[in-house]
Every structure is written in structure tokens, then in C-alpha cells.
């Protein structure tokens, strides 16, 4: 697919503002688009609203009690706020900063947790297939196929994180949201996850929050730079890194703050 080929964006964020407490906005009037089968990196200094923006994309931000949301997010042209949460989260999966496999479940059960927790019944062979596919997709199959029925928490941190990605893609989502997925991992595990993300964008659209600018430069196609809740600049990663338009972006990229 050539770079000039434009498709309809998967996600379209329109004038999104989010406040945890009345009047204190963590995300201010953000508008942006996320292209299909790409990796979009969200960058910015600590507390600038990256996680809040990311979590809004599958309405995980609504877990906080007094949250106030303005604006809209469209998934394939449909407002996510008009969908049921379960439908939305099936289409938009999430991976967290710390690997969080369910400690009471085996590796196998963790992968199909999305189905079992929602009482979606599957035949045994369907389940087996989903588990094998998901684990192969995250390059974990060969490492764990011998002990699928051991608890997921026995795995190393990097393996656990790949298990969590498998759990998210077992639902076959369109979009995968990742909030600093490698910040709790060592360099080798990190590079495995980065390779994995490169593979996954063939099938899914990835949105990645990262503190690590070189990671963003290495693996993302598009970048968003946020500062104090505002989206300062967004566009192709190459362009944003080489010729930033906003002085704040440039200051961040050259390490003046963050």
C-alpha cells in the first residue's frame, strides 16, 4: 500500500475534552484521526493526558466516577458513545503498562478470557483454535505450548505482556490500544514486543502511548504530540520528528522538557 493511498480513518476524534473534576480538563479539545493498519504513537511529558486520551478510545476513562466528556470519537464512522461498551471493547482492545494476566487463570484460560468473562460459549475446538492463533500471533506459542494449563503468572514479564496482547487480539479487534506496554520490561523483552507490534499492524490498527521517543521513531507511522492536555501537533512520524511545526514539539524532541 503506497503512502499516498488514503483510506477512511478507523478512529476520528472530534473536539474531545475530558475532565476528571468539573472544570479541570486533562484533555482539551483534541481532534485527530487514526489510520487503518498503522501504528500511531502518542507522546508528551508526564501528566499531559496521553493515558486519558487513549483510555477514552474504548471508554475505559468512564470507570472514574465524576468524569466529564465532551466531543465525540467515531469508530468506522459511528460514535463510540452510542455503542454498547461490550461491543466497543470487543472492537477496541487494550493492553496496559504492567502485564496483568488473570492470576487465577491458566495461560489457555487467559487467552479466551474475553469470551468466558462475557459468557460467550465456544466449542472446544473453536477455543483451541483461537488460543493457538492468538498465541502464534504474539510469537508465544512455541514457548508455552507445553504448559498451556499452567497459570499465566508463572511466565516472565515479557511473556506475560505478550500473553496480554494475545488476550486482547483473541477477540479479533479492529484497534488495539497500548499504554506504555514496554515500560515495565527489560530491553530484550521490549524489542520483542516492538517487533510484534510491527507484525500486528498488518491485521490491526495500533495506538501506542510511549514515553520513549526512540521507540516512537522506530515503530510508529504517525505521531501525536500532547502538552498540558492539548494536542500540539500530529502527523506522519517522519515529518513530526524531522520538521516539527510547533516550537513545543521541537523542545520536547530535543529533550528540553519531559
Amino acid at each position: 500500500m503506497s503512502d499516498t493511498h488514503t483510506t477512511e480513518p478507523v478512529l476520528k476524534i472530534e473536539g474531545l475534552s475530558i475532565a476528571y473534576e468539573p472544570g479541570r480538563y486533562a484533555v482539551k479539545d483534541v481532534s485527530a484521526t487514526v489510520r487503518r493498519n498503522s501504528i500511531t504513537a502518542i507522546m508528551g511529558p508526564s501528566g499531559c493526558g496521553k493515558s486519558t486520551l487513549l483510555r477514552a478510545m474504548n471508554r475505559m476513562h468512564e470507570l472514574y466516577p465524576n468524569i466529564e466528556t465532551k466531543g465525540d470519537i467515531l469508530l468506522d464512522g459511528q460514535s463510540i458513545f452510542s455503542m454498547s461498551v461490550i461491543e466497543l471493547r470487543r472492537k477496541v482492545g487494550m493492553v496496559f503498562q504492567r502485564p496483568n494476566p488473570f492470576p487465577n487463570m491458566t495461560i489457555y484460560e487467559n487467552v479466551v478470557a474475553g469470551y468466558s468473562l462475557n459468557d460467550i460459549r465456544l466449542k472446544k475446538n473453536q477455543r483451541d483454535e483461537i488460543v493457538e492463533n492468538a498465541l502464534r500471533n504474539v510469537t508465544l506459542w512455541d514457548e508455552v505450548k507445553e504448559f498451556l494449563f499452567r497459570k499465566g503468572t508463572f511466565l516472565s514479564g515479557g511473556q506475560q505482556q505478550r500473553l496480554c496482547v494475545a488476550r486482547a487480539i483473541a477477540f479479533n479487534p479492529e484497534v488495539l490500544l497500548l499504554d506504555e506496554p514496554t515500560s515495565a520490561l527489560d530491553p530484550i523483552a521490549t524489542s520483542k514486543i516492538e517487533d510484534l507490534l510491527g507484525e500486528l499492524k498488518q491485521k490491526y490498527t495500533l495506538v501506542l502511548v510511549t514515553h520513549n521517543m526512540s521507540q516512537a521513531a522506530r515503530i510508529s507511522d504517525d505521531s501525536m504530540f500532547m502538552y498540558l492536555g492539548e494536542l500540539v501537533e500530529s502527523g506522519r512520524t517522519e515529518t513530526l520528528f524531522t520538521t516539527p511545526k510547533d516550537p513545543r514539539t521541537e523542545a520536547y524532541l530535543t529533550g528540553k522538557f519531559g
Partner: protein
Amino acid sequence: MDNLLINNISRRNRTNARLKYIIIAGAVITVVPIFLIVGNLALKGYRQINMAFFTEPAPDTFQAMMATSSGEVIPGGIANGLIGSLLMVLVASLVSIPLGLMTGVYLYENGTKRYANFIRSLTEILQGVPSIILGIIAYLWIVKNITRGYSALAGSTALTIMMLPLIIRSTEETMKMIPVTIREAAFALGTPYYKMVIKVLIPVSFSGLATGVLLALSRILGETAPLMLTALGSPSVSLDLTNPVSAVPLLIWDFYNDPNMVNLVWSASLFLMVFVLSMNLLSRSIASKHKYI
């Protein structure tokens, strides 16, 4: 330099060794009384423990006197107490376990709200109320007004009120140990709240919850005072909730008050002690087998 290092290490080793002995001594001091108690009860009570001990109700004082004077084992057993205890504990558990778990989860979820704080304080106060007072309350509510006489139901009520705060506290404390990220993982998969509670929170914290429940059970199994005012005691085996029933600790008290039955005090106490100890051990083994957090 080298000398200093070696000096230092050998001093540390000596301190280590000393601390080890102190810890071992401490452990022995705590364990010895338990062995002494069980050993003592076993020596004095083992003769009475046979099949009839579990299957027959307590003897009357005349039977006991005849047996004791001819040097035989006292006939009969503690079946009326055993069944009564199990009946009341079962009913108390059926109410207090689900209610306690739900309240514990509620407190954990709404930790800072006013209403939750109010319930939490109530729970703490309830936990400190002497059990005889709970007996009096159950007497006023149930014996006076509902069953119009001493009854198993009244006993269960007193036991329920005793179990509730224990289960609520342990549930809340256990839930607090579950990392938020585990809940988020479930929500991110679209799991509705109540399924998250049933399929994630409760299984993940199973060991803590089970420990809390079993400890509450072993607490109330030995309760005597509140049962005197409610279940009263009964010479025969009964499963009727509206009638008086006996209980193992009530029987121990009866035996104690009858000079002819003193031998049964030892065997019934031995049984109660072993039962409660096994509950504790069971809770430990469950706790370690299902420990996820």
C-alpha cells in the same frame, strides 16, 4: 582492610545465629501450650470416644452414674450437640456468608463514601460486642417475638450476627489486595461489573475469602454464652429450627455441671478442639493452594 571485613562477617554470623535461637525459642513457647492442651484432653477423654459418641445423644445422669460407679465407659455420646451445632452453624453460614461477601465487596467498592464508612464503623462495633449481648438481642428478637420459645433459629441468629462482621472485614481486606490492573483487564474485555465481581474478584481472592469464612466458623463453633439464651439445649436430636436444640459447647457445660458426667467433659472438649484445629489447618491448606495475590 581484609581483617576488618572478616571481623565484620563473623560478627554478623554470630548475630544471625543468636537471632535464630531466639526465634526458635519463641516458636516453641507458642506451640507447646497447644500440644499440652490437646495431649491433656486426649489422655483424659480418649476412653469415651467411640462410635456411640457420635451417634447417640447425651446420657441422662442416672445412666452415667451407674456406668461410673461400676467403672465402665459412660454410655451415649454427643449426637444431639453435634447435630444442633451443625444445624445452627449451617443456617448461620447460609445467611452470613453471602451477605458478608456482598457487604465486603460493597465496602471495598465504595470505600470512601459516607454510607460505606457508616456501615464499616457499625461492623467494627459489632465485632467488639460481647457475645452474651448478641445472645440477649437474639433472645429479644427471636425467642420473645418469633419462635415464642427457645429455638435453633434464635441460636443461628446470634451466630449470624457474630459471623457477619468477621466475614465483612476479611472480605474487604482481601479485596483491597487485588491490584486495580486486574479489574481493568476485565473491564477492558467488556466484562460487565457483576460478572467481573463473580468471575474475577471472588476467584482471585478466593484464598483470603475462604480463610476469613473458616476462621469465622471456627470462632462460633465454640460459642457457648449466646446459645444458653437462645438454643437453650435439648436432650434429644432435633432438626426443627423452631425448637430448642443442643450444641457441643452447651453439652460441655451440662457435663461439667453433673458430677457423674465429668469424663464426658474431656471427650467432648477433645472433639471440639480437634474439630476447630482441623478447620484452621484446612483453611491454611486452601489458602496456600488458591493463593493468587
